[in-house]
């Protein structure tokens, strides 16, 4: 199935040969892909259900080339889709048929690691984990750690305001980025934030975090580095039923404990990862909780005692504490590989990303179980439980007619429920293409209109990453009518 969202978008009348001729002047031959054979592998990101052949792909290797591409595209009114390493799960980097996909993967220099100010200045294509590796000799690391950290880029992280298992204590990307440099669609340099803790005027830096490639193309990011704690240990608790596990999460936080990470996996997720990672998870458990403690040995020892006590009182059937760094990493490895490992038990999955108040975890799990029966699709659950961020993985088979549509509808119900429970439709993966219709579930049309004005302040012609993040008002109206039962629901769904 592929995506057709170009219809009804007459803003872009691209003269492709002219565009190629212009871009060829500013890019080396191996940095411009023009034929279908080369373009296809760029048709999707980590959300493979949504695919679209781009007009062109450009692979710049420095800021000057990025600027030149933007100027040409701006002048010729050609849309631009920024791309990191396309691990995104909401279709943020999915191409647009008229667009030039600008891959930032070649801009991957670590420009500076400063152990004194505890900062690093990196190009946007640097992988998240590479920052921590470069900081390791100084006893520092970059705290936000999406499970995809081995592969995703800092540029993508900023664009999605990504989170990770350690964000409960150390914050999301937005809390760990000090300054960004970027280019607007007309090729002008912009800079937000500063090396200092606060800057004068509006905090536009926070706006850029999570802007999904709609406002600027990021070309340089200054991140905060965090000292590695002297010790970290993780507790694994097994539960014979999910409700108890959900309640244990609420109790840990209620006890005033802020763990370095608090994650939950249900039985289906455990069974998918254990054969690959051999992390030692309890295969009989209905759910497991991973709760990390870090700090000085005394702090860790004290916190672990408290955590174990709460878990014990919450009815955990088995509790283990990592006894070495190797063991701790192995316990986490299973969680970090969880999404793709689910690929071992199903050909395809949709990874959802809603948030809910922690106290509703158990209700949500039960609701998902019921939906799973309703749609006759399996669903494995992996949660950043500590911050109430859910990642239900809805399993389907794209080669079976109708399964994707069922999976999409299943996912939409989960997100609608998230909003009803007092949560949001995205915790960290962004809106992208996937959740654009659901924005109307979360925001009133006045708010959406404000988003559009903001976008226009940066990009009047709507050339940067069109069709993502914020729905048109017309689309919102359609969606609202459909939910009220007066019109059929049409998600941007992948069509046959």
């Amino acid at each position, binding site marked *: *199935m592929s995506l057709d969202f170009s219809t009804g978008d007459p803003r872009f009348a691209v003269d492709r040969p002219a565009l190629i001729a212009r871009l060829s002047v500013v890019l080396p031959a*191996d940095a411009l*892909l023009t*034929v*279908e*054979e*080369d373009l*296809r*592998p*760029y048709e*999707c*990101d*980590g959300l*493979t259900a949504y695919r679209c052949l781009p007009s062109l792909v450009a*692979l710049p*290797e420095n800021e000057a080339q990025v600027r030149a591409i933007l100027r040409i595209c701006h002048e010729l009114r050609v849309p631009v889709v920024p791309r990191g*390493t*396309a*691990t995104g799960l909401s279709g943020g980097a999915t191409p647009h048929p008229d667009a030039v996909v600008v*891959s930032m*993967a*070649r801009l*991957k220099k670590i420009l500076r690691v400063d152990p004194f100010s505890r900062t690093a200045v990196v190009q946007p*294509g640097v*992988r998240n*984990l590479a920052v921590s*590796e470069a900081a390791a000799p100084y006893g520092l690391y970059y705290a936000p750690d999406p499970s*995809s950290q*081995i*592969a*995703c880029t800092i540029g993508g992280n900023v664009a999605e305001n990504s989170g990770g298992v350690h964000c409960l204590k150390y914050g999301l990307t937005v809390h760990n980025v000090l300054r960004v440099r970027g280019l607007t669609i007309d090729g002008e340099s912009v800079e937000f934030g500063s090396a200092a803790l606060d800057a004068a005027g509006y905090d536009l830096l926070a706006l850029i975090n999570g802007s999904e490639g709609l406002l600027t193309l990021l070309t340089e990011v200054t991140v905060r580095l965090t000292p590695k704690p002297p010790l970290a240990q993780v507790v694994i608790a097994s539960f014979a039923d999910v409700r108890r596990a959900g309640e244990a999460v609420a109790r840990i936080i209620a006890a005033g404990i802020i763990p370095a990470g608090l994650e939950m996996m249900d039985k289906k997720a455990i069974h998918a*990862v254990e054969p*690959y*990672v051999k992390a030692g998870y309890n295969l009989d458990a209905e759910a497991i909780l991973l709760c990390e403690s870090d700090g000085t040995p005394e702090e860790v020892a004290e916190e672990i005692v408290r955590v174990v006590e709460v878990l014990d009182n919450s009815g955990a059937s088995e509790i283990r504490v990592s006894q070495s760094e190797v063991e701790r990493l192995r316990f986490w490895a299973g969680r970090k*590989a969880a*999404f*793709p*490992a*689910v*690929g*071992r038990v199903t*050909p*395809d*999955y949709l990874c959802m990303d809603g948030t809910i108040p922690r106290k509703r975890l158990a209700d949500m799990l039960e609701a998902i179980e019921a939906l799973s029966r309703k749609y006759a699709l399996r669903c494995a659950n992996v949660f950043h439980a500590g911050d109430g961020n859910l990642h239900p993985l809805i399993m389907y088979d*794209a*080669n079976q007619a109708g399964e994707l549509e069922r999976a999409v509808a299943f996912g939409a119900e989960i997100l609608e429920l998230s909003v009803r429970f007092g949560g949001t439709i995205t915790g960290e993966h962004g809106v992208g293409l996937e959740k654009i219709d659901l924005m109307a579930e979360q925001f009133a049309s006045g708010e959406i209109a404000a988003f559009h004005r903001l976008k226009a302040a940066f990009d009047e012609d709507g050339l940067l990453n069109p069709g993502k993040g914020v729905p048109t008002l017309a689309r919102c109206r359609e969606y609202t009518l459909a939910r009220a039962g007066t019109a059929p629901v049409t998600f941007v769904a992948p069509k046959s």
Partner: protein
Amino acid sequence: METHLADFIKDTAEGREADAILRACVHCGFCNATCPTFQLLGDELDGPRGRIYLIKQLLEGRPVSEKTQCHLDRCLSCRSCETTCPSGVNYYRLLVIGRGLVEQRVPRSLAARATRLLLTEAVPRRWIFAPSVRVGRLLRACLPAKLAEKVPDIVTAKPWPRPAAHRRRMIVLAGCVQSTLTPNTNAAAARVLDRLGIALFEAPGAGCCGAMRHHLHAKAPALDDIRRVIDAWWPHLENGVEGVVMTASGCGAHVRDYGVLLRHDPAYAEKAARIAAMTRDVSEVLASEQEALSRLLRESGTDRAGRRVAFHSPCTLQHWQQIRGVVEGLLAAAGYRIVPIADAHLCCGSAGSYSISQPLLARQLRDNKLAAMTASAPDVLVTANVGCQTHLQSGGTTPVRHWIELIDERLNGVC
């Protein structure tokens, strides 16, 4: 991943296998992060996820050109991506299927065909390769630098142990290039095993294991190589020889695949499978003799101890055979200090004939690997495969050796 295989392949065994592999890929991109060519080139098409996509297009009947061929050619077959993939995608099998189809559809230039012919015919034959290297060495001073660095140094082996009446005997593969380029490797292995009460010997007539031709898609000659090796070894294996020891991880990975490669040959399938099962890397053999080895190490002095060693684990050891930490453990037990090297999972660029077919990338990977290995100024550089050893050697002045030579020196002294 959604797939729609084309009619020409859909209902064949190969098609079904390829489809299952494609469907296991969830397009997460983790593998790109540990792919040497993606790290160098930063183009989706030069990473495993993109190559999988290129092969998918091919299998779905879309037209392919030399573009796809080029990106598949650049793949080192290092299988680092498979070690990384949480979804269990058998990338290399898919690559073999994809390359086979591309080979049928996209003709190669005359020059490319000539190089391949030379590699498939000359290198695996010791009687051509050894004299060529000797001539090359004589002429090295007159060759352009780029060519000269490809001609290896003259290395002499220390003597093999005197034949002993050990009850335990094992075969070691002489190999096609190893006996010429690094003859001390098998000699050192033989001396070490001799101390452990195991007699090691090379069976005459075995020749090349077939890996070279296999990787150049010379399917039939590659299978003939294997049959010849089996014929040379079989009588010994019937005659009480305990197993086959591999001192080159590249050959080891291939021999361990014999059972699969000859599964459709009724005359050889069983023998091939048995040989594959009896084959172990020399590190595994030593690790299983740990007790005796520790005793020997205690008895011998500690003169070499404390030397700092950088070990490059070949892809055929860490990714193909999934043997990790064993060599490092043995060296540490022998008193050497292993220095950590950055990006230890990355290929050094040797990759069979890669240094000849993709000289630019091979050189970059080699220089990166050498920089990583020498970053903390170790005393010795070692690896576990003749190809990596000579390739790395061609890029620097510090000798690169086989790790077994270090164990040999600890047990038997430097002669």
